């Protein structure tokens, strides 16, 4: 199955299993995705190997960034009518609160879709959506 086939199937069924299996890094950090109507909520269940600072303990900031990057790429792929592979160009990440050793959530918004470049905003939270642990924006190049 090509990535385009997997994506088509995911768009039709709302089952992200195969799409996530096709991205080893997503499986490595344990990323999950659920669809509610047209909305996608990304989840990062707690996992020992994702921790950084052992004193709090807290999730490694890089893992939070990686989680938000994969989420944005999947969100962008799902929002396209035809299959286009997003390539990340840049990523700007603000850490607002410590990511504690518990499940983390993320949602994305497509701020601007041009012919070749898309701008995506990502917000990650744990306890409440109103208390984000990190916000980010990313530019992606879309290739046919």
């Amino acid at each position, binding site marked *: 199955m090509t990535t385009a086939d997997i994506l088509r199937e995911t768009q039709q069924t709302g089952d992200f299993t195969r799409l996530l299996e096709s991205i080893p890094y997503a499986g490595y950090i344990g990323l999950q995705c659920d669809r509610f109507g047209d909305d996608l909520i990304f989840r990062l269940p707690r996992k020992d190997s994702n*921790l950084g600072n052992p004193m709090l303990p807290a999730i490694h900031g*890089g893992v939070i960034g990686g989680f938000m990057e994969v989420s944005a790429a999947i969100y962008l792929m799902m929002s396209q009518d035809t299959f286009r592979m997003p390539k990340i160009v840049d990523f*700007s*990440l603000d850490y607002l609160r410590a990511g504690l050793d518990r499940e983390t959530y993320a949602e994305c918004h497509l701020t601007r879709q041009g012919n070749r470049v898309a701008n995506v905003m990502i917000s990650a939270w744990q306890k409440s959506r109103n208390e984000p642990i990190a916000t980010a924006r990313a530019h992606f190049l879309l290739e046919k």
Partner: protein
Amino acid sequence: MTDKVLMDRVDRFINILNQARDLGLTVADADAGQLTLCLPYSEKIIGNPETGVIHGGAITTLMDTTSGSVMICALDEFELCPTLDLRVDYMRPAEPGKPVYARAEIRKMTRNIVFTRCEAFQDDGEIVATCVGTFMRIGKDATPKAYRDMIMGVDQ
């Protein structure tokens, strides 16, 4: 020039970070105000199986860890500095099968903030990604003494 004392301090610091240990990060070089870490290639961090290219997230973690540890190479006493923000530019995909290195340096350190710059590159010297970061100085008193001593290599 390589400073063995600084290398050992950073080595102890990154080895208590689960994710850094899991990725297999190692200290390649350390000197006053600068640090180089190495991320070995592994299949679990691949982003695109068709090409074998590793995911940007692993490079973000490499650069966050390197930028967040470089203060160990500049401070007389260890203090934990949480990341305020990171800006990462992905210049080109990392070549599969080869390690990626990240070299971070301190551009400016104030009483409250550390400003860093970092470059990720491979053995041919070509830049894979760059990263600008800012880190908060919460002060050494916010870090438990036993933990500080462990990083500094002070015998208990």
